[in-house]
């Protein structure tokens, strides 16, 4: 196996971690469930192994087993785990404790729950240092902590030393967690979804920090994530897991171009693309199997486009076997994957000019937002009240049957925008016109009647359905409120989203996230709305399920001539689904235009930074990334002038004085709020 192009550029054959034939069972009163079956992989010095999988794939469980942190009902039933050649599965808890932190350490997804809220940061890192260096003096510990904080790129380490976790932003907290993990220079770093809770610009910063500390210490890393792009960019090799089994192992750089397992190929075909439009996403049918009731033969066969009902797939479990240079795959028909993939790519390729379809004579806009404002009164000190501008002068127009994508990171005001438009929050200024009529001036019963044209689907499929109601009743609710209930209509709505009437008899806890989101969509459609606001509606779903729901939304739009406001932090999804796009930052729209204009030639430095921050497997290392530095400023005290100037790599003196208007400037074909917009051909390196 060649490791020539490891991100660190170093080569090593020294094994750090060897996992062989590992199987983990859950032992419950209802019986034994096989959660992980026969997993084998190796990690060498300096190397990054990415483990990718959807929820329930067993990826996190495998690494918890390596750390010796499996819960009480979980048992390693077979296999061996060797750390630098030393078997760890039979070590006692105390012996494992000595290894954790020293030989290997972990960075979890949520820094908020990893850090102790009542201990100063310096103390917490110091504890990790002392644990394995009990003879350090106080000063030595402190010096080491400051050194670690500097290592993870913490500005002002001396000052930060004595602060509490709540004084840190999410990205800074994750740096602290990394500092703790690196305190004793472990041989192996396990990062379990280390950036999933972070915004994309912050994710890029944190991944850089991880790469830098590893380069310094030579630690190997296992990066566990659901994000194929993230591993493809940051790992040397990738292991793909599904339903507790390893499907394929391949060099990271090749995974997008040459997946060998049908599952991997399917996943890739269901990802929306950032740099070009695709006609339709492939969606892996069905959903992840219940592990207590595994399909026979190949676990993937009920969803597989290649194997499907072929006898070997139904009968015989494919073993993970070598398939060319540095690759292993568990599939009876993996030679056929390449052809299937090529066909999918052909199908997906968008016919030219689909984007211009809506460019005809401009009809009257169906939905207009005009100068929307929202300020919150926030209690500052004891007496002072401060104003928080959550929305400032937000305007847009939308034609019937089209989609406006609203993108931005957390704190940009996109969810406030949804609530204000839906009148779940009262606007502080501005107006929304729906079908040419003022929506904001309705009161009482007339408001309740007018609402039915503007419906919403929220992000969280768990809290958006009342857990105590049956599905039929949930979908019937809008009809009952407005007095038009019929069982047939409910069944028709269920059919619209691909569910049978029988589903109506069950309750939400019996459904998976994707199914619940379908139910929420059916409910939103019940009143025949003109406009649907989709607030992060697909963000909580696994990749394969996300593609199903996106395709459903597109079909429904074509069928019912729906108009969407699609709010999301995921730029690839926005590109796929939208006609127009608005990019938000600190409550303002900072760039707007046709989706291709904005994505292909971003004018605002923030948009460009967002696009560059998204992990890409085939990033050209020669082209330098355009990055947003630091953190979002305190929204209570935004900077003067351009709100982005504290993070803008192009900021100049002039940017301090003037808050730029959202207009099209020379060299750009769409509006942006930057005094010195990037032009199509003069994108600075």
């Amino acid at each position: 196996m060649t490791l020539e192009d490891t991100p660190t550029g170093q080569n090593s054959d020294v094994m750090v971690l060897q996992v062989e034939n590992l199987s983990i069972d859950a032992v419950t009163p209802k019986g034994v469930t096989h959660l992980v079956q026969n997993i084998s992989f190796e990690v060498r010095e300096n190397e990054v192994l990415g483990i990718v999988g959807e929820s329930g794939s067993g990826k996190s469980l495998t690494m918890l087993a390596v750390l010796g942190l499996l819960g009480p009902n979980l048992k390693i039933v077979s296999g061996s785990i060797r750390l630098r050649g030393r078997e760890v599965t039979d070590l006692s808890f105390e012996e494992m404790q000595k290894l954790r932190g020293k030989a290997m350490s972990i960075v979890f997804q949520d820094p908020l729950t990893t850090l102790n809220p009542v201990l100063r940061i310096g103390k917490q890192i110091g504890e990790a240092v002392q644990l394995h260096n009990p003879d350090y003096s106080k000063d030595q510990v402190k010096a080491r902590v400051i050194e670690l904080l500097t290592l993870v790129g913490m500005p002002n380490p001396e000052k930060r030393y004595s602060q509490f976790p709540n004084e840190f932003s999410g990205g800074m907290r994750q740096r602290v967690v990394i500092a703790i993990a690196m305190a004793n220079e472990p041989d192996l770093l396990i990062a379990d979804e280390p950036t999933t809770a972070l915004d994309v610009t912050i994710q890029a910063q944190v991944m850089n920090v991880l790469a830098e500390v590893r380069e310094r210490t030579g630690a190997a890393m296992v990066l566990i994530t659901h994000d194929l792009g993230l591993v493809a960019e940051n790992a040397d090799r990738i292991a793909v897991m599904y339903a507790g089994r390893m499907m394929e192992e391949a060099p990271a750089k090749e995974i997008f171009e040459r997946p060998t397992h049908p599952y991997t190929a399917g996943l890739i075909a269901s990802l929306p693309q950032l740099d070009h439009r695709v006609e339709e996403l492939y969606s892996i049918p069905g959903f992840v199997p219940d592990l207590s009731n595994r399909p026979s033969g190949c676990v993937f066969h009920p969803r597989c486009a290649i194997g499907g009902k072929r006898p070997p797939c139904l009968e015989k479990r494919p073993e993970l076997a070598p398939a060319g240079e540095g690759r292993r795959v568990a599939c009876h028909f993996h030679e056929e994957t390449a052809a299937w993939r090529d066909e999918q790519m052909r199908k997906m390729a968008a016919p030219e000019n689909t984007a211009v379809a809506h460019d005809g004579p401009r009809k009257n806009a169906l939905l207009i937002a005009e100068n929307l404002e929202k300020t919150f009164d926030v209690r500052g000190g004891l007496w002072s009240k401060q104003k928080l501008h959550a929305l400032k002068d937000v305007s847009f127009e939308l034609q019937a049957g089209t989609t406006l994508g609203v993108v931005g990171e957390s704190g940009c005001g996109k969810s406030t925008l949804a609530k204000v438009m839906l009148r779940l929050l009262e606007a502080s200024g501005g107006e929304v016109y729906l079908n040419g009529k003022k929506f904001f001036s309705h009161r009482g019963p007339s408001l309740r009647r007018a609402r039915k044209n503007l419906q919403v689907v929220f992000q969280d499929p768990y809290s958006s359905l009342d857990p105590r109601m049956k599905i039929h009743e949930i979908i019937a609710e809008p009809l009952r409120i407005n007095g038009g209930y019929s069982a047939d209509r409910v069944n028709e709505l269920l059919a619209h989203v691909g569910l049978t009437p029988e589903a109506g008899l069950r309750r939400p806890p019996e459904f998976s996230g994707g199914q619940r989101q379908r139910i929420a969509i059916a409910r939103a459609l019940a009143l025949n709305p003109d406009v649907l606001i989709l607030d992060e509606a697909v963000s909580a779903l696994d990749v394969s399920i996300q593609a199903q729901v996106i395709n459903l939304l597109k079909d429904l739009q074509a069928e019912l001539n729906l108009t969407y406001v699609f709010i999301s932090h995921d730029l690839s999804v926005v590109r796929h689904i939208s006609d127009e796009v608005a990019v938000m930052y600190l409550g303002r729209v900072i760039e707007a235009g046709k989706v291709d204009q904005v994505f292909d030639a971003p004018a605002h430095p923030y948009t460009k930074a967002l696009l560059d921050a998204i992990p890409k497997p085939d990033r050209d290392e020669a082209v330098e990334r355009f990055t947003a530095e630091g953190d979002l400023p305190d929204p209570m005290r935004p900077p003067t002038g351009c709100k982005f100037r504290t993070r803008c790599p192009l900021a100049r003196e002039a940017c301090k004085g003037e808050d730029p208007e959202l207009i099209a400037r020379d060299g750009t074909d769409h509006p942006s709020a930057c005094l010195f917009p990037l032009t199509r051909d003069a994108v600075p390196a």
Partner: protein
Amino acid sequence: MPKFNLSQATAVTLLAIMVVLIIIVPLLPGYDPYKQDLGGALLPMGGENFRGDFYLLGTDTLGRDMLDRLALAGQVSALIGLSAVMVSLFIGVTLGLIAGYFRGPVENVIMGLADLQLSIPRVLLLIAVTAIIGPSVTNLALLLGLTSWVAYGRVARGMTLSLREREFILSARTQGSTATWNIRKHLLPNVLPQMLIVGSYEFGMIIVMEASLSYLGLGVQPPLPSWGMMVSEGQNYLALAPHLAILPSIALFILVAGFQFLSQAFTRENELELVA
């Protein structure tokens, strides 16, 4: 895993004893809590009178069967407890939902009322009011109910505060639902199970309160018995016939403990449901 955990098993056992006492015993032949027999007064447990009648739990100062007296007193206590819980649950849930859903001045008034209620010592208040309107079973149940809504109100308001921001209520609002609709269809069904937990805890508290008042002579009036009253009467005979005071105390303990364990078991169940 056993089918019952410890608190469930304890609750079931204790409450089963109570069911036997206040439901089965009155159905037995010869049940008569009022029959006096001065010749057979103050019989000990398991004693017989001169006619050879057997008294499992002995007799009281007027020669009435202790078992039958205890059963009737239990019925009275349970009735008072249940009605008081129903009254306070109704008031508490209503006020709590209103406060949590509408917020603003309404909430301030209701929560102020709750604080006021808590700041007045309940026993003193009850003594004062009963002294004015006179003691009776109905008055007692009403008074106890009217003064114990705060616990329900606080929990109901707390849950409402978080539920009203949940997406299923937001989405109902965007569909044009009224406040009444949201409260009836979404808030109430989600809040009620928690209220039953509070109720089973409060039930025990109310029974104790009722016993204290009856002990002071301000509760149930003779010849209707009540456990509190029986304790207070039995006190004078502690040396001679200790069972007169001890038996009603034990009965009181079993009932109250039974409901405490029940509320604990409910809480566990609900936690499991939330985790799952």
